[in-house]
């Protein structure tokens, strides 16, 4: 990949990644030369069609499934929506109107479930505990005779915790319940295989692994009847209308293959830097790592610092050229801090002081050390002007993070 821009230390890779050279170059021929509509009968159109079917095979190979089980979508959100709505409708036909998911799913899942609740579905959101991991036992206990679907994310986007998807998949298969996983944060970062994980439906999104934005995949195991979200032409086996975004799909496939190829050695390199960053930030007093330290995406670091607020932290880090993210209410534009931090039991006061740093294979040891120094400095600066910190230090209030 290319040179770093403007000396920015980009640590927001869970929000989106920079496109890889490989992905960009894979797209160009499909803008310059093979630009015809895959649905057209003429030779250029048929060339595009061939390319589309070949790339479908490549994506299927990476995920371990058959090409006809791959549906190209506009990204993770669309795949999540379609997977959940389809499984719910299929269940309803058999009188099954109960869905199990977790409290810390992405809003693309949670808001879809809310919509189904309004339509009369019953939704059980499993708690995820302080470690941010749901257990197969919890799922087993929640499954009922009328459960239509279990949907558990592969890895959480804010705190990076990896869920026991293989075990949950095995359980759901045994109990005859459909299983969906939002693998948007996992694919390209940890090994994912739809067969060994026994998933029925899986969502992924290209821009989380150095592919283009606005393109993703819904894997649906054969035999599962998808419902259209978008009606129109007969593209994607009639399940997703709209002229295929071939350049983006080519870019996604190239990025996916590259990420998976590099994964074995790269995830160790990134995880080592992650651990260095976690160790460095742990030295800040009254700070706490969010989520399990061990069952964690290689690139995710998430902390809460008591006595400060996340948005001011982000702005001051931005001043120092560090691009980060936070789950504070002020950054979400909503009333409450992130539902993920609340789900792992962080109280509001502490959840407001959160910081998420997500690394990529371009992150260097120097970036990590610069970031540790900057965060340490900025946290101390904000605490020095915080009335909350004054009360905590003077003993007027008790520290929540010991």
């Amino acid at each position, binding site marked *: 990949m290319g040179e770093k821009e403007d000396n920015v230390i980009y640590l927001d890779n869970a929000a989106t990644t920079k496109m890889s050279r490989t992905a960009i170059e894979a797209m160009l021929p499909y803008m310059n030369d093979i630009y015809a509509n895959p649905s057209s009968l003429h030779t250029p159109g048929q060339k595009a069609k061939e390319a589309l079917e070949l790339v479908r095979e490549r994506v299927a190979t990476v995920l371990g499934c058959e090409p006809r089980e791959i549906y190209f979508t506009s990204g993770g959100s669309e795949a999540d929506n379609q997977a959940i709505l389809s499984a719910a409708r299929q269940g309803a036909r058999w009188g099954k109107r109960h869905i199990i998911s977790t409290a810390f799913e992405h809003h693309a899942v949670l808001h879809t479930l809310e919509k189904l609740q309004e339509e009369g579905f019953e939704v059980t959101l499993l708690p995820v505990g302080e470690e941010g991991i749901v257990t197969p036992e919890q799922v087993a206990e929640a499954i009922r005779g009328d459960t239509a679907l279990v949907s558990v994310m592969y890895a959480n986007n804010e705190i990076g915790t990896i869920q026991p998807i293989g075990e949950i998949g095995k359980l759901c298969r045994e109990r005859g319940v459909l299983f969906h996983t939002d693998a948007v944060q996992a694919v390209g970062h940890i090994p994912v295989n739809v067969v060994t994980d026994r998933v029925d439906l899986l969502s992924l999104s290209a821009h989380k692994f150095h592919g283009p934005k606005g393109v993703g995949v819904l894997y649906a195991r054969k035999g599962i009847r998808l419902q259209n979200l978008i009606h129109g032409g007969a593209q994607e086996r009639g399940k997703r209308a709209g002229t295929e975004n071939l350049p983006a799909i080519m870019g996604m496939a190239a990025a996916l293959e590259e990420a998976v190829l590099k994964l074995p050695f790269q995830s160790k390199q990134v995880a080592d830097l992650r651990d260095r960053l976690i160790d460095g930030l742990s030295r800040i007093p009254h700070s706490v790592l969010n989520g399990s330290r061990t069952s964690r995406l290689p690139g995710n670091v998430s902390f809460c610092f008591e*006595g*400060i*607020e*996340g*948005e*001011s932290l982000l*702005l*001051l880090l*931005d*001043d120092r050229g560090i691009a980060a993210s936070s789950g*504070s*209410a*002020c*950054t979400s*534009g*909503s*009333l409450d*801090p992130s539902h993920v931090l609340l789900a792992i039991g962080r*109280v*509001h*006061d502490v959840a*407001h002081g959160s910081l998420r740093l997500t690394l990529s294979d371009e992150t260097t040891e120097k970036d990590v050390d610069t970031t540790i120094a900057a965060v340490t400095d900025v946290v101390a600066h904000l605490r*020095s*002007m*915080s*009335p*909350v*910190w*004054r009360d905590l230090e003077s003993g007027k209030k008790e520290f929540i993070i010991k």
Partner: protein
Amino acid sequence: MALYSEKVMDHFRNPRNVGALADPDGVGEVGNAKCGDIMKIYLKVEGDVIADVSFETFGCGSAIAASSMATELIKGKPIADALTLTNKAVVEALDGLPGHKIHCSVLAEEAIKKALQDYFERNGIEYDRSLFPDCENCDHCSHH
């Protein structure tokens, strides 16, 4: 980030009058940590003039900037002027705030009022209670 005006960023990066004052004549604290912002204002009064003022704030960039600007607007001014400082004046002095951040300027106005109220109470000075925020029954969190 172009979320905030240059003025906001300046007051956020270089806050004026930050920290506690020794032996203040009035102190006012508003907001709560649950909602994500708390402002505390310290006053020194000489005669009927705000001789000195400082703040401490837990909150987002605009909360810190609004506190800083508010202290600048009342420093060295008569108490009567400080009493009539509106959140709108703070917003204007900052060259505007994004819509969902207006409540930060409201907090600044209320923190100053609360500190003045504390000063009146400590010195047995009569004042019109209706002009002051009712912080015990405040539902500021639901107005973000």
